[in-house]
C-alpha cells in the first residue's frame, strides 16, 4: 500500500510548512495603540459578534481615516476567533497580550471575561464588558481594571422592573404581579438571578426564573411551564438563537408578545427578524438606539464604507442594534484613550494609563452630541470607584420592520443597587485578599 506512504510525506511536509509560516512578522511600532479583539464570527452567537466587532472596527477605522488616529496615534487591532468559548478566549488573550501598546480588552463574553480578571489585573490592562459582565466589578475599589461600561446586569434588571412598573401603573402596583424570567443557561444568563429575587421581595411581586440550556434552540417545555404559570410579564434574558426561538415558541403556546420584555442582549434585529410576525409588538431595553440617522453612523457610512473599508459584509446591518453598540463601544474606548492622552501625552499609552482614561471617562450629553452620537446613547460618567458610569436606558418596540423608541431615557435605581454590589465585591476582595482602594491612587496589585 504505497498510497499510505505518500500520505505520510504529505502530512509531514505540510506540518513543516505550517510551522515555518507561523513565525509571523512583528509590526514595527511608531505610536500605535493596539486593540486586541477576541471576536466571534462563527458559532451560535455569530450575529452578535460580527455586528458588535464590525461596529467597533468601523469606528476605529473612521478615527484613523478621518483624524489620522487619536492625536496622531494610529489605532491598530488584530482579531482572534473565540466562538464565545472560554478556552479559545484565553488562548487569544495569551496570543495577543504581548503585542506592544495594548489599550483594552473587549471580549463580549461573560465567561471569557471571568477567566481574564486575574490575568488582566496582573498585566494591568483594562477589561471592558459593555452592557454585561460581572456586576460587582462595577466597584472600582476592588476591580481596578474591569469596566462593565454603561449598564451592568443589575442596572439593567432595575431598568426593566421599573419599565414593567410603568406599564402596570407604578411601582406600588407591582405587588401581587407575577414575572417570569427566561434566562440563558450561561454565566451571563445567571448573573441576574439574585437581583430579581431581591427586587421581587422589595416590590412584592412574584418571580419565577426558568433556565434555557445553551444555545436554546428548543424551548417547548419552558414555554409550557410559562403558560401554566400565567405570568403578567415575561422577561427574556436571552442571547443569540435563543431569542427568536423564544418569540416563536411564545406565539405557539399563545403567550402575548406585548407582555414579553427583552433584556439588553435580546434587543437586536437578529433576534426578531427570524421570528417573523411572532415578534411584532415585542419590547426590549437598550442603551443605544438603532438606525442610521445619527451623524456618527452617517459618517461611518460615508467615510469608511465609502472607502470600501467597512467591516460588515451585509450593508443592511449598518445601524443595527449590535452594529451601533459596537460603534458606541468604539467611542468609549477611543475617548478613554483620548482622555488619558491629555494627561500622559500624545503617544502610545500603557494599559495602566488607559485604565486612568477609563476612570475619567465622563461624557455628558453635550459632549456626546459633539461626537455625533446625540440620541445614539445618553451619557456616561465613570469614576475611579464607579466603573459602570451610570448609563441611561430606553425601551424600543419592534413593528415588524424596525425598532421604535417608546420611552424616554430612564435612569436605573443606582442608589438601591450600590450597597448590594459593594457587599458582593467586598466579599470577593476578602476571598482573594485584594486591598480595597480608598482613593484614585494607582491600584495596588498583589
Amino acid at each position, binding site marked *: *500500500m*504505497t498510497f*499510505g*506512504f505518500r*500520505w*505520510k510525506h*504529505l*502530512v509531514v511536509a*505540510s506540518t513543516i510548512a*505550517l*510551522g515555518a*509560516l*507561523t513565525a*509571523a*512578522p512583528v509590526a514595527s511600532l511608531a505610536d500605535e495603540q493596539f486593540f486586541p479583539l477576541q*471576536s*466571534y*464570527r*462563527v458559532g451560535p452567537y*455569530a450575529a452578535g459578534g*460580527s455586528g458588535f466587532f464590525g461596529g467597533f472596527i468601523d469606528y476605529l477605522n473612521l478615527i484613523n481615516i478621518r483624524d489620522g488616529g487619536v492625536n496622531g496615534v494610529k489605532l491598530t487591532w*488584530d*482579531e*482572534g*476567533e473565540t*466562538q464565545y*468559548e*472560554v*478556552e479559545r478566549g*484565553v*488562548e487569544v488573550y*495569551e*496570543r495577543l*497580550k*504581548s503585542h506592544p501598546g495594548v489599550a483594552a480588552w473587549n471580549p463580549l463574553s*461573560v*465567561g471569557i471575561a*471571568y*477567566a481574564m480578571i*486575574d490575568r488582566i489585573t496582573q498585566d494591568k490592562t483594562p477589561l471592558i464588558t459593555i452592557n454585561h459582565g*460581572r*456586576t460587582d466589578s462595577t466597584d472600582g475599589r476592588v476591580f481596578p481594571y474591569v469596566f462593565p461600561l454603561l449598564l451592568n446586569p443589575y442596572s439593567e434588571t432595575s431598568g426593566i422592573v421599573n419599565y414593567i412598573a410603568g406599564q402596570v401603573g407604578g411601582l406600588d402596583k407591582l405587588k401581587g404581579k407575577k414575572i417570569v424570567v427566561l434566562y440563558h*443557561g*450561561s*454565566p*451571563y444568563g*445567571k*448573573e441576574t*438571578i*439574585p437581583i430579581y429575587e431581591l427586587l421581587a421581595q422589595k416590590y412584592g411581586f412574584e418571580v419565577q426564573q426558568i*433556565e434555557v*440550556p*445553551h444555545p436554546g434552540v428548543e424551548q417547548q417545555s419552558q414555554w409550557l411551564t410559562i403558560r401554566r404559570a400565567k405570568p403578567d410579564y415575561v422577561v427574556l434574558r436571552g442571547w443569540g438563537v435563543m431569542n427568536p426561538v423564544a418569540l416563536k415558541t411564545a406565539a405557539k403556546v399563545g403567550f402575548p408578545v406585548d407582555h414579553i420584555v427583552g433584556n439588553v442582549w435580546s434587543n437586536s434585529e437578529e433576534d426578531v427578524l427570524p421570528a417573523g410576525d411572532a415578534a411584532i409588538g415585542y419590547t426590549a431595553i437598550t442603551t443605544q438606539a438603532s438606525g442610521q440617522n445619527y451623524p456618527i453612523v452617517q459618517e461611518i457610512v460615508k467615510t469608511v464604507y465609502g472607502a470600501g473599508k467597512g*467591516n460588515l459584509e451585509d450593508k443592511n446591518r449598518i445601524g443595527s442594534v449590535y452594529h451601533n453598540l459596537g460603534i458606541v463601544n468604539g467611542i468609549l474606548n477611543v475617548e478613554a484613550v483620548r482622555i488619558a492622552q491629555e494627561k500622559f501625552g500624545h503617544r502610545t499609552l500603557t494599559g495602566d494609563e488607559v485604565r486612568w482614561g477609563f476612570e475619567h471617562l465622563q461624557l455628558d450629553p453635550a459632549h456626546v452630541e459633539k461626537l455625533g452620537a446625540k440620541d445614539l446613547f445618553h451619557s456616561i460618567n465613570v469614576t475611579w470607584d464607579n466603573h459602570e458610569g451610570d448609563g441611561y436606558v430606553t425601551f424600543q418596540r419592534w413593528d415588524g420592520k424596525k425598532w421604535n423608541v417608546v420611552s424616554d431615557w430612564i435612569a436605573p435605581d443606582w442608589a438601591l443597587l450600590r450597597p448590594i454590589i459593594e457587599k*458582593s465585591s467586598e466579599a470577593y476582595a476578602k*476571598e*482573594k485578599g485584594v486591598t480595597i482602594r480608598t482613593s484614585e491612587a494607582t491600584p495596588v496589585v498583589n
Partner: protein
Amino acid sequence: MSSPASLPAAARWLFPVLAIAVAVVAPPLMNSDYLYEAILLPFLALSLAGVGLNVLMGYTGQLSLGSAAFLAIGAYAAFNINLRVGLPLPVTIVAAGIIAALVGVVFGLPSLRLRGYYLAVSTLAAQFFVQWALTRFPWFSNDSNSGVIDAPTLSVAGIHFVTPLGRYYFTLTIVALLTALSARLVTVKTGRDLMAVRDHETAAKIIGVPVLKAKLVAFAYSSFVIGVAGVLWAFAYLRTVEPDGFNLDRSFQILFITIIGGLSTIRGAFFGAAIIVALPLLLARASSGLAGGALDSGSLDMIQRIVIGVLIIGFLIAEPDGLAALIQRAPNGLAGRVRPRSSPATR
C-alpha cells in the same frame, strides 16, 4: 497491536525518560507565557484525560462518551473540598480523583449488561446528568452568581505555583506520575485482565478472569485519572470553571485524542492531544499570517476546521492504528520501504 512490551527494556524506558527530560528543560528556554498558557497546559491536561480514557476504551474496550463529565466532577470536587474542608492540595487532588472514581463506578454499572454502542449511549447519561446537576444546584459553585468558580492558587507545603512556569511544572509532575502509574497498570495482571475482557469477554470469563470486577476497576481508574485531569484543567490551566466548559464537545475531543493517538497505547494520548491542541493553533497562526487580514476571523476559522478535518482523515488513512503506531514505525519506513504490517486494529 504492536506492544511496547516487545521492545527491549532499555528502549522501553528511553522514550518516556527522554520525553520528560525535554519537557523539563526545553520550555523555559523558549521563555514564552503563550507556550504554557495556551499550548502546554491544555495539552498536558487533555493528554492525561486521554490516558484515562485509553485505559477504559483502548485497554478494556468500553466505549465512553462521558469523559467531560468526569473532568467536571474532578474540578468541582477539588474546588469544594478546598473551599469547605481545606486539605493540602495533593490530598485534595487525590480526593477529587476518588470522588470522580466513585461516580465512574456508578455510571460503569450499566457496562455489566451493555456493550458497544449501547454502553456509549448510557455513558452519555453521565455527560448530561453531571452537567445538569452542576448547573441545577448552586451549592456546587458555592452560590456564585454566574455559576463560575474561581480556582484557588496552587500551593504545596508553602510553595506557590503562580507563574505559568510554576503551574506547568506542577502539572507536568502530576501528569508524569499518573502516566507512569497507568503504564504500569496495563502491564500487571489487572491490566491483562482488562485486555482479556476487551479481546473476548466470554473467553475471559471461561479462563477465570473476573470480568465484572475488571470492568468496574477500569471505570474507576479511568474516571480517577480523568478527574485529576479535570483538576489540572480548572486549577492550573483556566483558573476558572463553568459547567459549559465540560460539554459533549469536550468529551468528543478526548475521544478523538484517544483514537487519533492510538488505542491501547499510553503514549498515543500525548500524540493525539498534541494534534488536537496544537494543530488548530498552528493553523490559526499560519492562516492569519497567510491571509494577512484579507479574510475575517470567522472565515479563517471555517477554513481551519476543514483543514483539520482533512488532516485527521489523512492521518487515519495513513495509519488506522493511530499516531503512536505511525511514529513507532517511522524509522523503518524511512530506512527501507519495507513496512511491517502491524496487526489489524483490535476491534
